[in-house]
């Protein structure tokens, strides 16, 4: 998978490494900005209130 991506990137090894780094950072950004904030309330790690059954924490 990653090998396939590597072979399809343009340029020499240095340019490919630079593009890979940018891609990796873009993925991390998307995770922190969109995916994790969406996923966090769905996971049972951070409900702090006492509530009746069914109420959101």
């Amino acid at each position, binding site marked *: *998978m*990653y*090998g396939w991506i590597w072979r399809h990137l343009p340029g020499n090894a240095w340019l490919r490494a630079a593009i890979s780094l940018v891609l990796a950072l873009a993925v*991390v950004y998307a*995770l*922190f900005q969109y995916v*994790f904030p969406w*996923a*966090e*309330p769905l996971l*049972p*790690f*951070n*409900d*702090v*209130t*006492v*509530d*009746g*059954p069914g*109420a*959101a*924490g």
Partner: protein
Amino acid sequence: MPDRAREPEGVPEAGGVPAAPTAPRRRYRSPLAALVSVCGELLITAGVVLGLFVVYSLWWTNVLADREAARQGDDVRHNWAQKGSGGGSPGTFDSEDGIGFLHVPSMGSGEILVKKGTDTSLLNDGVAGYYTEPVKSALPWDKKGNFTLAAHRDGHGARFHNIHKIRTGDPIVFETRDTWFVYKVYKELPSTSKYNVEVLSPVPKESGKTKPGRYLTLTTCTPIYTSDYRYIVWAELVRADKVDKNRTPPPELR
């Protein structure tokens, strides 16, 4: 030049194409090997993503929440300064902005802005919220009742992270524009069900109280890093001091 040296013996036909030995090997990889390889890479990726989620939960949300809480706290203090001290009754506070600051010296986390409501989006800003449901909280300046608060144990500012360090007899001070409400802790409940809304009652019987009074209840999740149970701390109002011109803190905070 080891390639050139070996060339005449081993691969007589391959002359002048150094890349030739590696290229065919990749092309002939079996489908099974390719599948296993992709699965392995996906598993590694999943591990990295989960690791990043831990970093996000325990570090990045704190960075965001600290920034947001500091900004909102500054706004509240700015508004207080503009309105001047002395004028107006406590009831005129704009609850949208936050009603005051909680100081818990034994938690050692500085001041905690308190706002109305316990919605996740509100608590995620690194503030504490007072309950509006399922049991409506009293406010500190009410004659009787239970001032009930919730805040995060981990991530998002982790305002009640050190709640387990609070002991009976410790002071908790709530600061409004013109009053210091000084409470004293009289009971901790290290673990209770998340459905135990009784702890928020105006007279919290589980803490041993039977008569109406001016109580304070802190709630957060426990054990640390999970939210299977709730940790409760109860305190009772000792006295209410007027805030002076220099906002000199009460002796409990010095």
